[in-house]
């Protein structure tokens, strides 16, 4: 874990546990996870299948409640916040990029990106369209603004999903195997974008992945094994993110 005293902990996880209960059967998935993630960091979360990565990511994304422990973000203990407030918090502060893009198929690329801002009333149409156009330009899709999501290639869809995740200027972007569904070329482009945006804007990224090459491009690697933090390593070679923050 980094010890830089000047950095602010965006996310602080303390003794987080999660049990799945089916009838009388209790399956512990997370067994006391603790770590901090600092503003502007670019962090990889590694671990084999079934290690609890996705469950942890879901809890950090406020989509799932932990069984015990605490989880602070921007000074709020999110384990104690009601669902309505969590929904609003998620809209304002957390962006998601999933392995599968999950775009709304009946909407254009521009509308998909505008959606989290306009539908929640955070921005008006004009403001949202300007920002969405800028973001789509940033991910190299200026020429595909009005293309329906279904007409885009896999890589393009994932880039739209990234632009959408950034739309409300979130403090944290959670990504779950963001290149898992892409060919090598597209995967490379998406990773380049993630690192560039992290470096440019200081947006904090937590990337859940199996891919050690992706992990090698991150400043820190948190390895989860069997529901516990196995190791947290810092990669001194990587300069983006913190350096730019």
């Amino acid at each position: 874990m980094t010890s830089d005293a000047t950095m602010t902990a965006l996310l602080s996880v303390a003794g987080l546990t999660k049990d799945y209960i089916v009838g009388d059967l209790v399956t512990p998935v997370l067994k006391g996870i603790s770590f901090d993630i600092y503003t502007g960091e670019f962090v990889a979360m590694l671990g084999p299948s079934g290690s609890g990565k996705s469950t942890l990511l879901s809890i950090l994304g406020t989509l799932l409640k932990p069984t015990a422990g605490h989880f602070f973000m921007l000074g709020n203990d999110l384990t104690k916040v009601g669902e309505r407030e969590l929904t609003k918090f998620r809209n304002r502060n957390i962006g998601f990029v999933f392995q599968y893009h999950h775009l709304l198929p009946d909407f254009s690329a521009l509308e998909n990106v505008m959606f989290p801002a306009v539908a929640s009333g955070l921005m008006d149409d004009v403001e949202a369209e300007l920002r969405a156009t800028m973001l789509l330009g940033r991910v190299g899709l200026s020429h595909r603004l009005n293309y329906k999501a279904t007409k885009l290639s896999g890589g393009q869809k994932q880039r739209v999903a990234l632009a959408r995740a950034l739309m409300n200027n979130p403090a944290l972007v959670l990504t779950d195997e963001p290149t898992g569904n892409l060919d090598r070329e597209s995967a490379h482009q998406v990773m380049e974008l993630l690192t560039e945006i992290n470096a440019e804007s200081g947006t904090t990224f937590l990337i859940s992945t199996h891919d050690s090459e992706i992990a090698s491009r991150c400043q820190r690697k948190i390895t989860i094994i069997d529901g516990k933090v196995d190791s947290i390593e810092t990669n001194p070679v990587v300069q983006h993110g913190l350096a730019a923050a």
Partner: protein
Amino acid sequence: MRYEAKVALRYLLSSKMQTGLLIGGVGVGVLVFCFMSALINGLTSDQIEQTVGSIPHVTIEPREQTPKVLGAADGVVVLPAILRDNTQRAQIRAWQTVLDSLHADEKVRVAVPVVASNGFIARGQAIQPVSITGVNPEQLSEVAAIGPAIIKGAADLDLNGIIIGARLARNLSIDVGQTLVIRSDRGGQRDVKVRGIFSIGIESLDERVAYMNFKAAKALLNLDNGISRIEVKLYDLDMAPALASNFAASTGLKVTSWVEKNKRLFNAIQGQRSTGSLIKFFSIVTIIIGVSSALLLTTVRRKSEIGIMRSMGMTKGFINRVFVIQGVLIGLLGAMVGASGAFGFTTLVLELAVRADGTLVFPIDPSQGAYLAGIMLATVASTVAAILPARAASRVDPLEAISQ
């Protein structure tokens, strides 16, 4: 709400086939609703018109005076016999006051004073019994549908005029313009000229009924101060029993509504209306089931999209509204299509389903299709039908949906 409407509209437009079928389904339901309304209401109006059109909705008559039997000594059995006064007719004496109060009542369309009694018509040696009805000439059509039934002459009731039925005219071998003698059952008599001959098609009426001028009939029947009855027609037929009770209480006279006099018809009409209501109820239930099941399927199909919207911070209320708006739009559009279709269809039936003699096969009335009620009910039904799918959609677990 604006963005929820946008998403709802986009969902409906993206599945044109399903949306078209749903709108069509609601439309058929509303078409059945409006068609049944037009048919049942038309049928009811026709039956009422045929039966009630020629009779008063409320009749006000003198109360029968029955003398009380005085107490008798113990052991004495009294068997009273009432002998009606043969010279004094039952009559409403303060009829003008009653008439004025009826005219002041906004529920009353028209109130007609009538004098009536039995009498005889004589021509030479031929004598025929008749029922004499005296009415103001301008109100004749309110008492009987004579105008369209006139086959000779005119419905003209001057002081010396009389209108008789075709069968009576034939029995007396008399024609329009000829004079005959009319006698009351109390001996009065007057010469009158036949102004018109009618044929209603009901033997007893065409043979036994004669219409005279109100004033002439009052003189003939020796009713200088009173009248026999007041015939009342209302704007709303269904109010007749209630208003009859009110009139009876306020006038102290004998008041009878058409419902009382035609109980069997009234029961038949009520039965008809109930059957119609049942069919309309089931058409609305069909709309609810159809819309609800289709939208439930949509929630399953859109599960991952709902999940991603929830993960993007859309509230359960947002998702709820997206589906309820779909229900509203389907209901409103379907209802308007159905109501328009029903109007067109009923009009077509009215034009095409006509017998050789010009009468209608279905006494349908396109103006009584209850279109607004159909549109409102279907829209509400469709909205209600969307609530269950909307709740199901808002409860979608975003995690489960995203991991699909």
